[in-house]
């Protein structure tokens, strides 16, 4: 009995912190999401109302262009980001494994990963600035009029997505680099002896053997994009006119600018549900190793 009680103490501090500062607020948020701002219990009607607000989903966008609403912006973000993150991470890992000095280039790419996202946002704003930014100046060489790309509805979101690729590719590159090291040399040796071309080796050996890594990269990238906040807050504040608004930012706006905790709770709960669904395969992998 004494031993069991002593052992329970191992769990108390961690579980208490989690219960008070994570689990309770989460339950509270779900609860809030079922009520209208007037305090009426509305269950899912609240979701229908909030998710059809123009700042969340703006069907007029399909006729006139941005903004389409935070929900669609997050979808665009994911659709562009996910395949590019997988491709760039994998290709970078393979290229930088095979060249001398690859480790140095990896360290440079990795800088993005250790940069606080707020600073990332500032750097983006600077890169895309019409007066001092290098991107508009380079584009000017191709005949585009220099302008602050983050300040125009048609380019703001895409500028942020490009920036987030720059900041996030290191993560995928590091995971793929680690994955590559687990592929034994004899696999490649055998392929080379059989006369396989580098392309065939890449597509028929490297890519399939790294499939588990790809699973993790996809999940983590999805979660990262869902939660994207800092760079948007700092670089565009979701603007101009909501053209680069995203769900996490809209949640903040509802909660702390419009003082509508219920709408904020709806957006947060929606984010959580998507995040949980996306990460189910990863849980299975984590739980299935007892």
């Amino acid at each position, binding site marked *: 009995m004494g031993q069991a009680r002593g052992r329970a103490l191992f769990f108390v*501090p*961690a579980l208490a*912190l989690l219960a008070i500062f994570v689990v309770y607020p989460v339950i509270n948020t779900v609860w809030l999401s079922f009520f209208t701002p007037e305090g009426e219990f509305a269950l899912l009607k609240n979701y229908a109302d909030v998710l059809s607000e123009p700042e969340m989903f703006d069907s007029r966008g399909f006729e006139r262009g941005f903004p389409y609403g935070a929900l669609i912006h997050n979808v665009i973000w994911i659709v562009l980001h996910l395949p590019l993150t997988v491709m760039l991470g994998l290709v970078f890992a393979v*290229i930088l494994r095979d060249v001398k000095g690859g480790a140095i280039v990896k360290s440079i790419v990795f800088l993005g990963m250790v940069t606080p996202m707020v600073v990332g946002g500032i750097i983006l704003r600077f890169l895309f*600035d019409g007066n001092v930014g290098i991107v508009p100046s380079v584009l000017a060489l191709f005949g585009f009029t220099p302008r602050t790309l983050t300040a125009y509805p048609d380019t703001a979101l895409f500028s942020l997505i490009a920036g987030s690729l*720059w900041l996030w590719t290191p993560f995928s590159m590091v*995971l793929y680099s680690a994955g590559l090291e687990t592929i034994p040399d004899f696999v490649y040796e055998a392929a080379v002896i059989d006369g396989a*071309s580098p392309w065939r080796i890449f597509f028929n050996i490297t890519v399939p053997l790294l499939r588990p890594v790809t699973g993790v990269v996809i999940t983590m990238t999805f979660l990262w994009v869902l939660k994207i906040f800092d760079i948007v807050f700092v670089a565009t504040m979701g603007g101009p006119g909501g053209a680069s608004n995203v769900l996490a930012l809209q949640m903040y706006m509802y909660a702390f600018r419009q003082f509508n905790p219920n709408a904020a709770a709806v957006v947060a709960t929606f984010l959580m549900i998507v995040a949980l669904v996306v990460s189910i395969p990863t849980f299975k992998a984590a739980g299935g190793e007892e």
Partner: protein
Amino acid sequence: MMRTVGRSHGQKVALYIAAGLIALIWLIPFLGVFMASIRPLSEINRGWWKFDSFTPTFKNFIGAWNHPASPISKGMLNSLKVAIPATIVPVLVASIAAYGFARFKFRGRDPLFILVVALMTLPQQMIAVPMFQMMNKIGAVDSYLGLILVHSAWGIPWTLFFMRNYFMALPIEVEEAARVDGASDWRIFFQIIMPMALPAIASAAVLQFMWVWSDFFLALILIYSPSKLLATQRVPLLRGVYHVDWGILAAGSIIVMAVPIIVFAVMQRYYIRGMVGWVSK
């Protein structure tokens, strides 16, 4: 190296060109910020990549460090006050619990573990509103204690997951021998397990420190007095009123960024191992 044997000369050249391009594209943003931080605004406005006149100056760093509205120096100090305890607490608390999950057998252990791991995927938005209300009620809004506790709780699921996997891989024989000699669970944990787990603890601590240091969202919600703002909250405030003062903004960015970069440079091995903890079992 065997892997490169199958490649022709042309393919190798292409690889090096690609590697050079990657380095260039990833370096340019940082180089730009660095150049902006060491040059006067007049030169930045003409393009930081132009060098017909080049007068390096340290003024921007001093300006950001002692900024009248929002000195970065104060922000650095504040961020340390939050990040150090918010690293020690969760790593210690989660390691203890992780050991329990790895070694003690009891009913409901695995579902409980999976529940804790599942908390890892939560977006911070999910706790924001009730957290603010709770802190408001107990008068902990705008206090570091509240922020430290939230960061600590938030860091537990990942650290616990990571440490538990590490403990599971440790050979159990040493512990069993100690147990036969009559050592208690706590003694075994602190005198045998913790010393063996120092590399893993270093990985967990490095990652947690970087996350807390880089955090913006939780600080934005809980801390608002101008004197208490953390480093990440101060950077955007350096922007200037009538025009964007890129020099000061860039210098402030570099100062705030320097801390995680130095930690990474010194602890690289541990950092990467922590990151890769996701894929390796």
